[in-house]
């Protein structure tokens, strides 16, 4: 933890986060004096999700996601914790950059949505065309900006030109220079009510969306298609698809096991707030489910490594995912009951 100085010469403590959007949101709240952890933000903003979209291709592979859509977490948290935020998109590059500079001069720290490929401070491996990465700009420096990227464990410098490219990149989910900062944040946010709202929302998203590709249904759908995939697509293509699922689960800044551990951390914090043993038990159950997801990743990695030649096969990987689906279904049903009983 290193203290950084913002424009208002207030110290800013950079905290290493697992996920960019929840990390940025919690940093914006902390800067305004509301102490809220990343996991808490993740839970309140209903970040946990599952979706597998076989018909939406991205680099030729179906999209699998373990979290809610980018740019839904932040507004939910802002609403539930009661903060007034400035949010704006820009069409004109120059105006967008000028607005950023003037917001910094008004001594705000500013959240930006960017394309991760053009952020040159990242190692090569992190960089791919993805338009939903969130960062915080602390202040302007010579030829660039001082940036607190929650995914990295230290603040970095970024040249102005690269930042401009990243903010105005084109493609799916264009950031369009999206910029946001806190105007006022309520001094004493109602965490209890916000937690209950977040939990209920997550339960709805996981259990009640009548669509076969999202929530628990999506998990079952994907598990079954993994079992069938080597016969249907051939081993090579099946390996590619399986590897992509594991990448989405572990690689894309999830804090491990596709955000399941982060959600368990949220449930643990919530259990303390409500002094509820039931929530504490649910947190333990979530951890156990996360461990199965990790096992799924290990088994899948072995399948990919041996091209399906070992005793670990696709049926085993799919079976593990079915176990996860079953246990998560039970967990969210229980959570729904518990959340309804809790008093705000």
């Amino acid at each position: 933890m290193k203290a950084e100085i913002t424009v208002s010469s207030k110290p800013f403590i950079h905290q290493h986060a697992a996920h960019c959007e929840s990390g940025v949101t919690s940093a914006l709240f902390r800067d305004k004096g509301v102490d809220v952890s990343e996991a808490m933000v993740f839970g309140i903003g209903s970040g946990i999700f599952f979706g597998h979209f076989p018909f939406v291709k991205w680099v030729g592979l179906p999209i699998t996601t373990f979290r809610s859509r980018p740019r839904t977490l932040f507004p939910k948290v802002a609403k539930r914790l009661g903060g007034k935020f400035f949010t704006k998109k820009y069409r004109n590059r120059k105006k967008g950059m000028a607005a950023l500079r003037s917001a910094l001069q008004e001594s705000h720290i500013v959240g930006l949505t960017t394309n991760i490929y053009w952020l040159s401070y990242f190692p090569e491996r992190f960089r791919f065309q993805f338009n939903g990465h969130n960062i915080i700009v602390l202040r302007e420096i010579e030829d660039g900006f001082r940036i607190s990227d929650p995914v990295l464990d230290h603040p970095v410098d970024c040249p102005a030109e690269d930042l401009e490219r990243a903010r105005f990149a084109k493609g799916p989910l264009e950031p369009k220079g999206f910029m946001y900062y806190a105007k006022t944040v309520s001094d004493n946010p109602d965490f209890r009510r916000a937690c209950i709202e977040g939990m209920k929302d997550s339960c709805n998203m996981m259990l009640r969306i009548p669509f076969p590709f999202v929530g628990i249904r999506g998990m079952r759908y994907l598990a079954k298609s993994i079992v069938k995939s080597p016969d249907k697509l051939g081993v090579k293509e099946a390996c590619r698809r399986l590897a992509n699922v594991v990448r989405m689960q572990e690689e894309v800044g999830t804090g491990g096991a596709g955000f399941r551990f982060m959600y368990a951390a949220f449930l643990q914090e919530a259990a303390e707030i409500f002094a509820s043993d039931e929530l504490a038990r649910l947190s333990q159950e979530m951890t156990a489910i996360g461990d199965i997801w990790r096992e799924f990743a290990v088994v899948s990695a072995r399948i990919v490594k041996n091209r399906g030649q070992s005793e670990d096969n696709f049926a085993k990987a799919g079976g593990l995912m079915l176990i996860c689906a079953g246990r998560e279904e039970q967990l969210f049903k229980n959570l729904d009951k518990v959340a309804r009983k809790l008093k705000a």
Partner: protein
Amino acid sequence: MKVKEVPQDITYYEGEKRACYALNDEGKYVVVTSTGWNDEAVVNSLAVEELAAQLEETRQAALAGFKSPLCYHMENRQMNPSILGKTAGIAVFRVKRHFRPEIFAKLGDSVLARYAQALALSLEELKTVPKNTVEKGRKL
């Protein structure tokens, strides 16, 4: 996941560390940094190698004169015709047409400049393809 189970296998993130959530000895969740995980590296290298192979194939094709350098530079930036077209402000069908070397060779400087701007390259770089396989560490 317990704190001591957080993988510290390899310095796979080029010195950077990743945050993981894990339980400490008292059963409380804490954020732990991880330097990399072998199993993750396996699945990831599959995707990375695939991209690299595709890029190398395009580079050969461009050198042999089957494809224009534009196609190579687009793949080098991990773009597709639709992203490139939007960034440069050129219709997708024209972008695809410009992958043919004989048509690319006739392009005027104004069109080339738009591509160069979109791909963050100089005009000279845009018109040529590296002679040797490019390793990691592309600069902006």
